[in-house]
């Protein structure tokens, strides 16, 4: 089975996000009032071949722990966005 996975990387809560802040401050000048909590992160999307969704997710978690995220400053959120029938790219 092939599972389409999205990983979202965000800075840990409380960590300075100057890029998000700069964007948030720019929004009112374009007329977007009342927008807050802007954060900038990273997104990874990939396909994992695995016997089950749980194992695909496990692989993604290990990838995050070892490479995709730095746990000192970031946290990763993993979403499996297919039911296992995704066509391999």
């Amino acid at each position: 089975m092939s599972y389409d996975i999205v990983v979202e990387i965000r800075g840990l809560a409380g960590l300075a996000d100057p890029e998000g802040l700069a964007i948030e401050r720019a929004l009112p000048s374009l007329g977007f009032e009342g927008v807050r909590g802007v954060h900038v992160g990273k997104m990874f999307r990939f396909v994992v071949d695995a016997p089950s969704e749980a194992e695909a997710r496990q692989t993604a978690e290990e990838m995050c722990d070892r490479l995709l995220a730095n746990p000192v400053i970031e946290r990763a959120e993993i979403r499996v966005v297919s039911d296992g029938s995704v066509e391999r790219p």
Partner: protein
Amino acid sequence: MTTDIGIVCFPGSNCEHDVARAFGALGASTRILWHQDDGIGDVGAVVIPGGFAHGDYLRPGAIARFAPVMAAVADFAARGGPVVGICNGFQVLTEAGLLPGALTRNVGLRFICRTVECTVESTRNVLTARATAGMMLRLPINHYEGNYTCDAATLGQVERDGQVLLRYRDNPNGAAHGIAGVANPAGNVVGLMPHPERASDPLGVGTDGVVLFESLLEAARTWQTVGRPSEPADAAN
């Protein structure tokens, strides 16, 4: 014949020859260590120089830390060997878990390239051993991601245990407590954002970096003569 200083070169490193030249001026022998080498040979200390290893892809240092040579560097560090990371090298060492904390983007979101004043804090490490606590050093910085960050417990520990070796006088990048350089608890692994090699020639921005490289050279030669543990199998690979 042993080599005093081994300088690691990744694709994208760009300060390795500056570091070699600065150590050469002190009479040290140097050798460039390629990132795909399995070992570091018989060097007395390792320097991971500045640059943009592997293009800084993903995060600065994130790819470089998986280079074959880094396994040998980690082993050398674990045995007490002196290891110093400068700028991008500092980022590599934090990513590798050899130093606490992480380097994030400068708080002003600007790449900063200028000479700054730093105060020597602790001298209980291989890089500031010959300096004096409280002395001011003028050193160039040249980075976009030099904002030292760690959790509160780690920050308390590095301050309490004398792991902070260099602090900015006018914090240019938002670093926690203005930390410009930090050591591991044993003091044999050090990282700093400023570039001592660029302050090692009177024709440049001064010579305030020389005392740091003199310290490391002394640590390297001490390691060569008395510091090595008794004949580990991989010591001479």
